[in-house]
């Protein structure tokens, strides 16, 4: 192993408003190594990275860097209103002879580079028109295409498709060949073991382990992260989902012919009480749109949604919620948390009218229900009055889950519910989904992790280009079947416009 350290950190401490996010952390990154940085939500991984890159000044300790660092931060951090090309080149735009930005060249270059990452979108369009996953790939391209000596990736795969993850791994491989050091943060064990050679484990802001990864059994890594003994942790497969559920007979949710041009073209989904239906598909296949169309957050041209046989008014989130639908949105920061408000207020937000009388809110009722959910979902907070913006990503996600459960829905739409959540919390969330289904809730589960879908769902609806490309049940719930459905040619029955190619 190469021994040249490119980053050396000793005894770094960082405190936010009294919370020690980092507590005397040592960290050494060697040239050419792929170093996994792991830990539970809120362990301090993102904070350490921001210290490494100089975004945060540490309160104490030493940071030594040799070489240029480029970073992909945890939340997609690009400028949605600027064009894809502008985002890619921001800060190092190609120039003309007169020192002005050469837009033609930038466009052409951007197209060439992004093709290598599987993105064919128009690079002159605003970045915001791309899906989250595509944006993540642009961020990846931006970070990798600079001549950096170190590339840091904070949960880069959390918004990526299996196919995109492969692209990412190829990129990592290329970087590795060029002897570039990589810091890799992820909650996905498979990925870590596949690409990383070294690991550093953080727990509650402290470094608890550092060493080669290959020698370390998974179960031991998990035990280091959680701070519990190995025997405590039962190795129960890759996910915490249990057996199939016993679904009712009559569907509680029927969504027919949902059409929202141009991204959704006639999707049908039905879910019975106590059933978990998974939604699979590639990036931009319309899964998020399907969920949003069901709850009425995007306008639809066609189609209707029935709850227990009754039609839900279209394009009206409030009515859909009253009918018993709740949706956990994919983008936590933009569509989930209300950053200024406390954990308590974030949890009760949707249920507020039910917790008040004559428009006056009742604190006692709120406190009771908030306590219940903080305990049940094991949300790590200093107090329910803590501002939600101060929580780690995983705990914010749990707060949002609590919000939707609080609204006592009949149907729960979960768009990437375990994205960015640590192994411990992820298992908890998965177990919770299981439990909710057992209690008779109908769940629509959208996930980019195939394992999660295959294990967690009783039935899978596979989407492609806004169509249903297939439905899988029972024995068909295997990786091969899903990939086949995703890759299958359009049916010749003339469902789609370009069917005449056959």
């Amino acid at each position: 192993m190469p021994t040249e350290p490119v980053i050396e950190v000793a005894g770094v401490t960082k405190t936010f408003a009294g919370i020690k996010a980092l507590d005397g952390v040592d960290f050494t990154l060697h040239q050419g190594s792929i170093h996994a940085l792991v830990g539970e939500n809120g362990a301090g991984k993102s904070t350490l990275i921001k210290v490494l890159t100089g975004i945060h000044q540490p309160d104490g300790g030493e940071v030594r860097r040799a070489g240029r660092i480029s970073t992909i931060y945890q939340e997609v951090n690009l400028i949605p209103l600027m064009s894809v090309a502008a985002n890619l080149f921001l800060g190092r735009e190609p120039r003309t002879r007169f020192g002005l930005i050469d837009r033609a060249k930038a466009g052409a270059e951007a197209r060439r580079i992004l093709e290598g990452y599987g993105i064919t979108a128009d690079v002159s369009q605003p970045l915001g028109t791309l899906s989250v996953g595509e944006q993540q790939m642009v961020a990846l391209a931006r970070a990798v295409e600079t001549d950096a000596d170190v590339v840091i990736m904070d949960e880069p795969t959390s918004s990526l498709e299996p196919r995109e993850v492969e692209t990412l791994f190829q990129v990592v491989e290329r970087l590795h060949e060029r002897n570039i050091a990589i810091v890799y943060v992820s909650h996905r064990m498979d990925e870590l073991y596949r690409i990383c050679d070294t690991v550093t484990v953080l727990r509650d802001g402290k470094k608890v382990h550092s060493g080669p990864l290959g020698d370390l059994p998974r179960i031991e890594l998990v035990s280091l992260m959680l701070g519990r003994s190995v025997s405590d942790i039962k190795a129960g497969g890759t996910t915490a989902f249990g057996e199939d559920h016993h679904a009712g007979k009559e569907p509680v949710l029927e969504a027919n012919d949902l059409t929202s041009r141009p991204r959704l073209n006639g999707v049908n989904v039905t879910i019975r009480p106590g059933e978990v239906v998974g939604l699979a598909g590639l990036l931009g296949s319309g899964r998020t749109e399907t969920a949003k169309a069901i709850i009425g957050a995007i306008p639809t041209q066609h189609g209707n949604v029935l709850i227990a046989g009754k039609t839900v008014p279209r394009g009206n989130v409030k009515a859909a919620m009253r009918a018993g639908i709740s949706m956990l949105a994919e983008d936590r920061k933009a569509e989930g948390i209300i950053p200024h408000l406390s954990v308590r207020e974030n949890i009760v937000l949707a249920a507020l009218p039910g917790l008040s009388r004559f428009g006056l809110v009742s604190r006692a009722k709120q406190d009771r229900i908030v306590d219940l959910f903080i305990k049940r979902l094991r949300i790590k907070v200093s107090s329910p009055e803590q501002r939600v913006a101060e929580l780690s990503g995983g705990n914010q996600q749990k707060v949002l889950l609590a919000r939707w459960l609080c609204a006592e829905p009949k149907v729960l739409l979960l768009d990437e519910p375990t994205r960015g959540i640590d192994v411990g919390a992820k298992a908890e969330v998965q177990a919770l989904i299981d439990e909710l289904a057992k209690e008779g809730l109908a769940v629509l589960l959208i996930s980019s992790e195939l394992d999660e879908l295959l294990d967690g769902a009783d039935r899978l609806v596979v989407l492609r280009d806004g169509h249903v490309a297939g439905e899988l049940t029972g024995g068909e719930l295997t990786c091969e079947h899903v990939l086949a459905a995703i890759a299958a040619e359009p049916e010749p029955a003339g469902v789609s416009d370009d069917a005449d190619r056959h």
Partner: protein
Amino acid sequence: MTTTLASTRTKVLQRQGAAVALVVMVAVAWLVFPRFGSLDNVRDLALQGSFLAVIAIGMTFVIITGGIDLSVGSLYALGGVLAAYGSQWGFFTALLLPLAVCGLIGVINGLLIARTSMAPFIVTLASLLFARGLLLVITDEGATTYQIAPDSAFVELGRGTVLGFGYPVFIALVLALLGGLLLNRTNFGQNVFATGGAEQSAVLMGVPVARTKVLVYAMSGTLSGLAGALTAAYLQSGVTVIGVGTELDAISVVVIGGTLLTGGAGTVLGTMIGVGLRTVIQNIINQIGTLDSNFQSVVSGVFLLIVVVLQRILRR
């Protein structure tokens, strides 16, 4: 490449509800009012618009960074007074003194906004008061009005013409052109968009957000000072009563021009169209001639509303 061009074109069209309105207004005015199209009237329109245009170019940059600059009206007046005051020492003092002082106030605005997390609205509101106060100090509570010698070179800057169009018109056009280039074809311009588009992300992407902010406010201050200097040259004196409410005019022409007040998007061309619209509508009110003076503001308000709503609908 062609698709890129076409999509850019539709995008421009969508953004420019104002351009559509301007064309319609001009066409109607041309047909209805015989005097509207006269060369004299056109020259006067251009000149009147040019002072506001200079201020609005700076405001466009500020608004694209997601900020706002309420101090421009006061700085405009202050710039005029300083120019007239400086004119006793010759052309360059007359021109540079207002640029320096107003630019400095702009820098202070920018520093306060960028280095502390104070809202631009409130910081520039304070400098609106401050600059007015300073102006009153200089003019002995408004008792002194500095005159500029009518035969000085500085007056020529405001009064001289080419083809009958005043120098300020050309200065405004050149500045608009430079502003457009700066915004779209330089790294600074990209930083301006990035700062307004998503500040946190811009920081993480290595954009010098603080420096960008200081620069745009400095620019806005300097341009307001320049507009004041040009006005003083044109009026041959440092009039103290100008610039009241000019900040609202500048903001409304920028917004009419399709620049988002939330930041992250906007064009200098749009702003110029906004200035054009405002100038034309005022001229039309004059051409009608019989409108009750109180009713004029109703018309301007309603007009502003129509343009913004139109824009909003076009963008959908």
